[in-house]
Structures are given as C-alpha cells and as structure tokens.
C-alpha cells in the first residue's frame, strides 16, 4: 500500500467515524440537524478522498472520468430536485425511491465485478462468491421491492394487498432458483454468467412478489426493512471490492434499519415476520367478522363544533394522515392558537404510526410551527383523554378504533389512542369511508361522537371562522 492509498484509507475511516458520530447526534431534536450535517460531512470526505485517489493514481481513462462526472451530475441533479420539491406528505415514498436506487447500485457493483472476472476467464475465491451472491440477491430484492413500496404509497399501485395466484409456489420457486444457483456456483467454483443472471432475475421478481401482497398500512415497516437490506447489500459490496468504508457504513445501516423495523412493528403490535408472511398467506377470512352494534351516526356542523371547542377547558387534537393529505397542518395550528388565546388548554395526541411512518406526524406539525412541547406521545396522552372535554380527530381513523381492544378484528391488539374516553368527540372526516385497515370504526357510532363531514382543510377553515364568531 503506497502513501496515497494509506492516506485515502484513513480519510475513509474518518468518514465512517462521521457516520457513527452523526447518528449519535440524531438522538435528540436539538442536535439532530447537526448530526445529519456531520454525517453528510463524512460522506463528502469519503467521496472526496475517493476522487483524490483516482485523480492522483493517474490510471483512470478519460472515459472513466466522463462516466463518473455524468453519473454524479445526473444522479445528483435528480436527487436534489426531487428532495427539494417533494411534498412532506410524499416523503416516505421518496425515501423508498432513494433506497431502491441505493440497493440497485450495490447490486450493480457485484454484477460488474463478476462480469469482469468472467470476461477474464478467472474464478473467484469462495468468500467473494458468497458476498457476490448475497449482494446481488439482496440488492435486487431491495431495488424492485422498494419501487413497489414507493408505488403503493404514491397510489400508482393499489395500496390493497394484491394476492398473486400461486404466490406461495412462485416464492418457493424463486428461492429455489437462487439457492440452487448459488449452490452450483459455490460447489463447482466456476464463474458462470448465465447462473448469475438467473439469480438476478429471481431476486428482482422476488422483490415484487414479496411486497405486492402486503397492504399499504404496513408499507413503513416494509420500507424500513428494505432500508436495512440495502445496508447489508452495501456491506456485501464492500466485501466484493475489498473496501472497508462500504462494510462499516453498510453494516451500520443494516443494524439501524433492523432496530427501526422492529420498533415500527412493535408500535403496531405486530411482528415483522407476521407482516411479511401475512401477505403471502390468507388474510381474507378475517376481514368481514367485525362491525359492532351498528348504531347511527350523529352529524354536526361547524357552528356546533366551534361552540363546543370555545367553551372547553381541555382539548386534545388527534391528527392523522387525512390531515396530512389535505395539507391542513397549518389550519390545525391556527385553530389551536385561537383556542389557546381563549384560555383553552390544547394538546396534540400523536400515535406512533400517525401519518405514514413513526415520527411522520411530528415532522408535518413541526412544519406548521406547532410548538414541540404540545405534541404528546400515545402513552403520555392516553390517561389524559378522560379529562378532555373535546377530542378533535382530524383525518385519523384506524389508530382511534376501539375495535382494537377486543379480538376478532384485523386491528386487534394494535395500540390505539383512547379517544373514546373523552367527554365528547368530534371527528372531521370527508365521508364514512374506511381507513387503511379497510374496516368500520366503532368510534363513529359512539353516542358521544359528532361527525363533522368535511375535507380537513376546508373544515378547519370553517371552524376557525366559526370560533372567531363565537
């Protein structure tokens, strides 16, 4: 190893340290932004160091530089543009898209390396073969899987679970192709491009068949799992091209993604395995069993609600994805400020999976300048519902469904906000339509509940006007 390579490797190490330190700083809201910058700085060091290495090594062709510069310009431009322009509500699918391309790049590294070795008529040692196959399989699954997940959240692909006829057999067949192909390569030790392409195809199709049967509500867990997969694929790519910084960063993300996936699944009281397998298996028979004691729905208008709110002393606002979709977070903040000016105590109850991902609702409300201390996590706010005069549910559905407390419902066992414990409940909702889980919400037929049928944004605007008039 010459001096230059030694220095660059040390710079890579520094970059890796930046990633670890950056993640540590993301522990608290106060230092999180700085942590992301530290992590970005580590990335700049690692990429810059690589550029210097290539520049001073002197054996990169003009074509090589053109490829690198065009690639960076195109990818960087697309990344910058989409990241700058995306609506905050559409952010989970964008993260999924970035995850897809990361996984794709990781797979391409191993594929390119393999084709080169095959072209030279050489063979690879077993450990590199294993890393190559793992990188290709995981990278391909992540690539198509994340694209499907992104498409589902964007509404390009129906969010409902799509059951593929014979899906289970297809899954087994694909797994068999990958395992037999890998086994053949490992045992014979030959460099066989046809077998590699069979493995690539199996991985790509598996990504599709794995995610398609999973319902939209479970997508955050799936994206997080795929994020972890990408990290692992990148670490494998590091083994293939013998690069430590890829191994460190990939393993870090692999571990973080795994933890995050488990935390998300826990928040919904489901196991990761259950979510992944659930899509493959039945899932049909359980749907219809629910619906409680029927009961009629009480409809209210803006003036009724305004009076209720204005003369309340404790109000808890329960924001959900409907609020995000309607871009009503500014309206809800305005209403809350108006009520506070009248001496009403206003808090926000944030379900762990409100919005589309854990913490997503906090991001949306922070965007609307809602003060941080008013946002209460589920466990903190649940005991307070009993004291609340009004619980105002804006575009939230499944996370408030009392059906989750008793068995026999698809949402059974999911932790919910105890909205029905409030003295009275107002639900702003466009229609009696069902939520992501596709079931009826008993809360709406509760005698304490008034349904205020409106688009979240328009409904809040009318409410604000009505409260001002009280």
């Amino acid at each position, binding site marked *: 190893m010459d001096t230059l390579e030694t220095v660059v490797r040390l710079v890579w190490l520094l970059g890796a340290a930046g990633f670890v330190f950056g993640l540590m700083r993301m522990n608290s809201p106060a230092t999180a932004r700085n942590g992301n910058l530290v992590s970005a700085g580590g990335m700049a060091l690692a990429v810059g160091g690589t550029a210097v290495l290539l520049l001073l090594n002197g054996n990169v062709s003009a074509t090589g530089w053109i490829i690198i510069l065009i*690639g960076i310009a195109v990818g960087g431009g697309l*990344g910058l543009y989409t990241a700058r322009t995306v609506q905050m509500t559409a952010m989970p699918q964008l993260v999924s898209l970035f995850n897809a391309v990361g996984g794709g790049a990781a797979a391409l590294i191993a594929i*390119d390396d393999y084709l080169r070795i095959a072209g030279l008529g050489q063979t690879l040692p077993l450990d590199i073969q294993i890393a190559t196959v793992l990188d290709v399989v995981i990278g391909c699954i992540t690539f198509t899987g994340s694209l499907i997940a992104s498409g589902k959240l964007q509404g390009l692909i129906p969010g409902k679970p799509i059951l593929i006829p014979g899906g289970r057999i297809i899954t087994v067949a694909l797994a068999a192709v990958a395992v037999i192909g890998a086994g053949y390569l490992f045992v014979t030790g030959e460099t066989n491009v046809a077998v590699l392409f069979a493995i690539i195809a199996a991985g790509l199709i598996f990504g599709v068949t794995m995610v398609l049967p999973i319902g939209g509500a479970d997508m955050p867990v799936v994206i997080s799992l795929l994020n972890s997969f990408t990290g692992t694929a*990148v670490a494998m790519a590091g083994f293939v091209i013998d690069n430590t910084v890829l191994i460190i960063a990939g393993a870090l*993300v692999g*571990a973080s993604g795994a933890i*995050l996936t488990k935390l998300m699944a826990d928040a919904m009281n489901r196991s990761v395995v259950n979510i992944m397998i659930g899509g493959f298996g039945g899932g049909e028979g359980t749907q219809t069993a629910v619906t409680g004691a029927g009961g009629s729905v009480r409809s209210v208008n803006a003036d009724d609600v305004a009076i209720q709110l204005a003369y309340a002393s404790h109000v808890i606002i329960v924001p959900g994805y409907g609020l995000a979709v309607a871009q009503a977070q500014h309206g809800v903040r305005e209403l809350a400020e108006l009520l506070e000016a009248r001496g009403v105590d206003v808090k926000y109850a944030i379900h762990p999976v409100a919005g589309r991902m854990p913490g997503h609702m906090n991001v949306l409300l922070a965007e609307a300048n809602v003060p941080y201390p008013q946002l209460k996590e589920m466990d903190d706010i649940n005991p307070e519902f009993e004291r609340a005069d009004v619980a105002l549910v804006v575009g939230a559905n499944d996370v408030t469904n009392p059906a989750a407390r008793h068995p026999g419902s698809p949402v059974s066992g999911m932790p919910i906000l105890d909205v029905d414990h409030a003295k009275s409940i107002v639900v702003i909702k466009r229609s009696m339509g069902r939520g992501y889980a596709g079931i009826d919400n008993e809360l709406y037929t509760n005698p304490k509940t008034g349904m205020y049928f409106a688009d979240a944004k328009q409904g809040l605007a009318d409410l604000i006007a009505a409260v001002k008039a009280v």
Partner: protein
Amino acid sequence: MSAELLAALTVFVLAILCGFAVISKVPATLHTPLMSGANSIHGIVLVGSMLIAASASDPLSQILSLVAVAFATMNVVGGYVVTDRMLQMFRKKPVAAKATAPAASADDAKA
C-alpha cells in the same frame, strides 16, 4: 480464512454492534428523519461505484458503472437534502404564550 477476510469480518461485526448501540437510543419522534438519515448513509455505495467506473474498460461495464454512479449519487444527495429538510422543522420556535422553548433561532415563517 485469509487475514484480510478476517479483518473485514471483524470490522463488519463491530460496525453492526455499533449500529445497534447508537440507534437504540433515538426517540420515536425522530424515527422518520433517522430512517432517512440512515438511508443516505448507505449512499456510501457511491465510493464503490466510482471505483468500478474508474476501471471500467468494456462498454457493458461502462454502462453498468454509469448507472451505479448515478443511482448512488441520487441516494446520497437526495437522502441528505430530504433529511435536512425534515430536521430543519424541528427547530424550537418562539411560539406565543407557551414559551417552554428558550427560543434560540428567529421565527422565520416559511409557510
């Protein structure tokens, strides 16, 4: 097992443990930004993509590495920018009445 592989495996395992230790302390409210932040970190694959692009000699390899570099850069740039956009909103703001926050930064009402 070669010494290099052993060293690489050591790094791999320790980095996994490091990831567990660092991540498990992050509060739930930061999970989405964290996921996005971790997502940008695996953009490190850009380093690998640049290295294979530099030594690409045949057209197929050149195309593959071009796609890899573009994909990886999109992952890096997009990932960090969108994470920063999210975290930018977590600044404590001097909001009327309830002045729990010490209000460090000025309230730029970017509505």
